[in-house]
């Protein structure tokens, strides 16, 4: 399903243009967070408690931001990843992060398309 910028803007009583920089912030921040998550997941053998704790924090933050922007699929998957990190389960973490990245990419495309069709940044 295509992500609807208009619907989100309506929810927040904002103009779509006002949301554009917020999306930029979201994707920039997400990229850094997911890169960090991948590095952590690549080696969970040393200091695992500390690393799972950091993963929990990363997915908790992604979850909150995603739900706020009505990106519920990303929010749901981040919640599952947060729960897995809390339970210190490493199995499937890497593949789920890949899935999360794909979702993010798809929404990013949807948003780009929307703005390309609805005028340029002022």
């Amino acid at each position, binding site marked *: 399903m295509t992500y609807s910028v208009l619907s989100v803007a309506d929810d927040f*009583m904002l103009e779509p243009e006002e949301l554009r920089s917020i999306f930029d912030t979201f994707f920039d921040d997400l990229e850094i967070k997911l890169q960090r998550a991948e590095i952590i997941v690549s080696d969970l053998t040393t200091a695992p408690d500390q690393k799972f704790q950091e993963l929990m924090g990363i997915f908790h933050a992604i979850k909150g931001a995603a739900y706020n922007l009505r990106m519920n699929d990303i929010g749901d998957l981040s919640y599952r990843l947060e729960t897995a990190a809390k339970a210190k389960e490493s199995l499937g973490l890497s593949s789920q992060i890949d899935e999360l990245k794909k979702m993010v990419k798809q929404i990013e495309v949807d948003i780009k398309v929307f703005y390309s069709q609805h005028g340029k940044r002022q």
Partner: protein
Amino acid sequence: MTYNVLIVDDVAVNRRLMRSVLSSLEGVAFYEAEDGFKALEIVQNQEIHLVILDLMMPGKDGFEVLDEMKTQTDLCDIPVVVYSAIDGIDSISRALDLGAYDYFTKPLTPQQMKVVLPMKVRNALKSYNQKKQLEVIHEKMQLELMLANLFQQSLMAEYQEFPELTMYGKYLPSNEIGGDCYVCHRPSNGDIWFMIADISGHGVTAAMMSSMVKVEFTNQVKVCNNPSEVLQNMNRTFYPLTDGNYYFTAFVGLIRSSEFVWSNGGHPYPLYYDHQKEQVSILKSNGFAVGMLESVVYEDVIQPTASGDTLFLYTDGLLEDKQIALGGTVYEDLCRYFLSYKELSKEKPEEFFNVLLNLFGNVENKAARDDVALMLLKIK
């Protein structure tokens, strides 16, 4: 006025979103903090009127920020609206226990975004504003009470000298101002009149009434012949004012030639020290408080006076705690103390007052005690 609102969230998108949503509020400027350390730095260095605080943050979390703010006197009044995930209701409950003003859960629904969040922010700012206004009013009132205290103290002389007697007085109000008063007055007809009175209640009303009582007393002694008449006339004046809701106890005395005439309107019994016999007697008599009943008759008592005799008058604030502790033997105690310190009462009345106040535990804990007025009359 511009209100400064601090949004604390480790996720930049959340801060940006909230700021955008709240930007419709007029007169609000925003600060942002990405963690608890930065939040505390901002509230300590900027004039912040409201904090919107995410509870779950890495490093110093929202609970620690809230806890530190509520334990610092200059920060504890700033309202804090906390928020957390919908499944974090236990966290919110804990934050409310720590002193959070209000809360909301995230993600915010459209309804919450449009109505609830701006309303919560407006309410919190309104509450902060009202609290600050109350503080200003309170400070102003305290200043006015302090000045009123100075005026009230200046109306009650600590020392008055007459050919027939010397008067020493002391007044300790429980608040800034109180309802006890004493007065020693010689009208143009030549007799020396005095009164000690205790108005029911404390504070401004009692203080206002005590001023009225003093004025009425000085008016009455110009036209009355004896203390009972003064009390009766004052009762006629004051009863209709409040239908008996405010009243006062009063002891009125008159020194005429070598006679001491007195009448008591429900006041604690004064002590009379007979210099020649070196004895202290309690001036017992019954009478209703003034202004309590519509029609009251008071009685005069006449006794001789001699040079060196001393009259000690006080209000019930002196004895209040002791009466409870000693179960009614307080007058005997007072007589004993008076005899023990009679030399001090002659030579240094001010020290005598302080000794009595200490003995009856009336110096410390000002807020807990009643008003106290003390009066010592030494017949020449």
